[in-house]
């Protein structure tokens, strides 16, 4: 563990322009190390006291052919002295490590924005691969931008020439050269990255030294060279951030910690069974390291086996958890039905991605809400929760564990590729501030049968094999309400179906009332979101409210069942707008449940909403 105390707010160096916030996008080839570079810039920015949000955006191919447009890997960060809620719309600075990166990303750069390009990678062949006939750095097509064209490849080679690395190894340091350059542009401290490099390349001190040398050289060049007109250093004040100990956290890591926190609070073992799938695998990786925290992970032979093993573990008195993305969840569906029918606790994580079918595995979408709420054979209700941000994954995971155990039910957690990979600073909570999650294993044989229920929650008893006197059989065949034995009785099936619904409906009484994130509790327009649209919706609504528009933001965590007051809350608004990264799912569930005239705002490009897109939609409804 290493903790850094933030320095006092420094005075602004006179030669730097102070900005409230900035959006920087690093873009290069898949092999250029853009994700690592972005990750280091994120850490340095957090240490500088800014609030921030990131958006890693990379292809599914591990190493797409070098120099192609489809092999471009990008990392975007928005940081500022104000509260940052999204990774930002248009960027202020684009780092383009090759022509393909420039071609793919230029459209997202603000007019007049800064481009830092490596001329060493703009040879004729590189240009052709990216589909350029002329060199854009030279043909005047970038005249509307501030271009810093440097031969980063050559400058890197010079910087590391004394380290004895091969040419190929030396060239790999150019991302660190570039990072050093951008560090100077925003006045960032290089030391944490130097420390990280030395630790990362512990066995190759020559590689570590070369990377540090490249970073220092990039920094020095930025500091000493005569920058083009209009290009200069920037300063971003530290944000007003609540006191506490912070770390940057991705949604995948926060979710893993949250699940482990849940079973820690319940004081039971977690058996996490999963099959690798993008973008969910990171949760398996994170939990696999938590073996000392009563977490056993099992990489099953397939998605179905993963779900089944998790359910088997829950039968055995552990909390079974399984995780996947949409296509894998589809395979788990039959098993989830068994968990509903046998009323065993189970947490299912769906890191949603663009579909249908394989779709775009590394691109984000919110199109599995129907699958979670409705996507099973027969009447099979369960509970569905959605995380709104990386840090929120922690809270949602604990809530999922609580509900699964208390109500003996499967609980879905919906997250998505964007939240899973994105990072934000996290004020690390104290586990002792959370309520314990009571687990009541049945031990008393008196009057026992496996489907006896708690009168209040309707949860059945959790009777674990190994307990003397409670031997019983459960399974997927309908069982008698009063004995748990197999039953094909018509009236009994009606009663059991009704009871399964009543149990899930009852969760609505055990969750917080739906609040309003921003704005009044009634008015002209409610923008209702769920999941990772939180950032752009909240910024759009805040922006328009400062301009006097009557708009409120409602964000739903408990997707099923809904909070009890949600219907009444929505009925207090003249219009309801539901932005979703799907073709309209929550909007239809809301309409079906409450008969409210909700309208969708839908985006399925694999990219998160831009703030402006939501602002435009709100204006269109309020300004006519």
């Amino acid at each position, binding site marked *: 563990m*290493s*903790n850094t*105390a933030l320095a006092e707010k420094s005075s602004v160096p006179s030669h730097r322009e102070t900005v409230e916030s900035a959006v920087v996008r690093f873009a290069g080839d898949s092999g250029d190390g853009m994700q690592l570079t972005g990750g280091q810039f994120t850490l340095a920015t957090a240490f500088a006291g800014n609030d921030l949000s990131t958006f890693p955006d990379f292809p599914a191919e591990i190493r797409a052919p070098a120099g192609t447009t489809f092999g471009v890997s990008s990392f975007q960060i928005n940081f500022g002295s104000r509260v940052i809620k999204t990774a930002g719309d248009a960027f202020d600075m684009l780092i383009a490590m090759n022509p393909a990166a420039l071609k793919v990303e230029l459209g997202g750069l603000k007019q007049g924005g800064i481009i830092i390009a490596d001329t060493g990678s703009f040879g004729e062949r590189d240009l052709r691969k990216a589909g350029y006939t002329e060199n854009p750095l030279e043909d005047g097509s970038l005249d509307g931008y501030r271009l810093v064209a440097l031969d980063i490849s050559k400058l890197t080679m010079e910087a590391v020439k004394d380290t004895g690395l091969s040419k190929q190894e030396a060239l790999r340091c150019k991302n660190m050269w570039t990072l050093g350059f951008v560090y100077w542009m925003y006045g960032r401290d290089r030391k944490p990255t130097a420390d990280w490099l030395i630790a990362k390349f512990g066995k190759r001190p020559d590689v570590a030294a070369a990377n540090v040398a490249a970073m220092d050289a990039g920094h020095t060049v930025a500091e000493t060279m005569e920058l083009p007109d209009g290009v200069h250093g920037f300063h971003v004040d530290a944000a007003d951030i609540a006191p*506490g100990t912070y770390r940057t956290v991705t949604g995948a890591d926060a979710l893993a910690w949250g699940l482990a926190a849940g079973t820690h609070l319940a004081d039971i073992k977690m*058996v996490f069974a999963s099959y690798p799938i993008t973008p969910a695998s990171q949760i398996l990786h994170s939990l696999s390291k938590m073996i000392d925290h009563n977490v056993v992970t099992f990489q099953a032979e397939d998605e179905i*086996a993963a779900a*089944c*093993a998790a359910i088997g573990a829950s*039968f055995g*008195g552990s909390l079974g958890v399984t995780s996947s993305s949409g296509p894998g969840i589809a395979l788990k569906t039959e098993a989830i039905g068994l968990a509903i029918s046998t009323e065993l606790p189970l947490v299912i994580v769906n890191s949603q991605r663009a579909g249908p079918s394989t779709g775009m595995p590394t691109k984000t979408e919110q199109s599995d809400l129907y699958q979670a709420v409705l996507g099973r054979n027969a009447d099979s209700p369960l509970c569905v929760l959605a995380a709104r941000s990386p840090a929120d994954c922690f809270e949602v995971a604990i809530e999922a564990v609580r509900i699964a155990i208390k109500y003996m039910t499967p609980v879905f957690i919906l997250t998505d590729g964007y939240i899973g990979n994105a990072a934000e600073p996290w004020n690390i909570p104290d586990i002792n501030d959370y309520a314990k999650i009571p687990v009541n294993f049945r031990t008393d044989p008196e009057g026992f049968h496996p489907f006896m229920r708690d009168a209040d929650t309707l949860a059945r008893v959790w009777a674990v094999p190994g307990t003397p006197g409670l031997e019983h059989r459960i399974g997927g065949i309908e069982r008698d309400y009063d004995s748990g034995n197999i039953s094909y009785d018509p009236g009994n099936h009606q009663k059991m179906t009704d009871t399964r619904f009543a149990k899930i409906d009852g969760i609505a009484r055990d969750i917080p009332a739906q609040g309003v994130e921003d704005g009044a509790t009634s008015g002209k327009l409610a923008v209702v979101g769920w999941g990772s649209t939180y950032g752009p919706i909240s910024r759009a609504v805040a922006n328009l409210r400062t301009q006097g528009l009557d708009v409120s933001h409602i964000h739903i965590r408990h997707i099923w069942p809904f909070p009890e007051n949600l219907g009444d809350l929505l009925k207090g608004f003249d219009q309801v707008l539901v932005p979703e990264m799907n073709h309209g799912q929550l909007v239809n569930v809301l309409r079906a449940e409450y008969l409210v005239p909700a309208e969708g705002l839908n985006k399925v490009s694999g990219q998160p909403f831009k703030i402006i897109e939501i602002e435009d939609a709100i204006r269109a409804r309020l300004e006519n």
Partner: protein
Amino acid sequence: MNVVTPPEKLTPKDFATDQEVRWCPGCGDYAILKGVQKTLADIGARPENTVFVSGIGCAARFPYYVKTYGFHTIHGRAPAFATGLKLANPGLDIWVVSGDGDALSIGGNHLFHLLRRNVDLQFLLFNNEIYGLTKGQYSPTSRQGTRSPSTPWGSLDNPASATVFALGSGARFVARGIDSNQKHLPDVLARAHAHKGTSFVEIFQNCKVYNDGVFENFTARDVASDRQIYVEHGKPLTFGKDGEKGLRLNTQTLSLEAVVIGENGVNESDILVHDETNRMIATLLAHMEPPALPVALGVLYSAPGQSYDDEVGDLVRSHTPAEKPDFNKLLRAGRTWTVD
């Protein structure tokens, strides 16, 4: 001083539930159920510690009739449920009950991985070479040409051998029994139970309704002694009414051949001695088919190795600190910073 009362000795009846058994009259499952209940009593199984897990099919109803813990799951996936259950509670004694469709068709993948991982449990495959519960379609073990509702002109695909599949999947215990042979079956089941790791037992089970007599070619009274061989570790592989027949290894063709002792210069020393720790012998035995060769019954292969659940347990123990670790420390591992 504490007086330890030994647990009451249970009888087969103590392992019967109050549920009405719903198999067809004459089904071989009744005999297997009886054999299992006898075995549980013989081995001193504790009901609270014993779990029967099944998938879907006629055989999969088994757990409802055994007075232990039971989980009737979904088609083909019982091995995965059992694996998760064992990871949650390694102390449980788990039996998986499956049929030829459940284990080798829809669940073939899971069975393969269960055997390769060597999870400590008993896997019983009731093979009746037909789909019973779905009303008589041919199964992956049905012989080529089997006429069924879905194959009115006879099935086309080659049948799978359950034991050959198990050996190929890395099973470390492979045995065979016959439903009606109550003298032999409990012994095989007891051996399976004593083995640490996945114990795979194929039981030839007669489906009275859809495939009656399919095993008659080696179970019928008049042919049984010539077409069955009960293999025993360390003993010569002999069979026949008076043990006059035996199996000889043809070293030229690397195959087994049936010979008669005293004929054509064959004497007792020519007969192969069974070594249940030898995977090659087990594989040759598993491949035998009547009428040319007898069906091998008993423990074909037993070579214990560390089970998956044991390995997981070792890993967990080696990483578990003496004191419960501080969860707050986990959240604060790595780079952090403080805002005052």
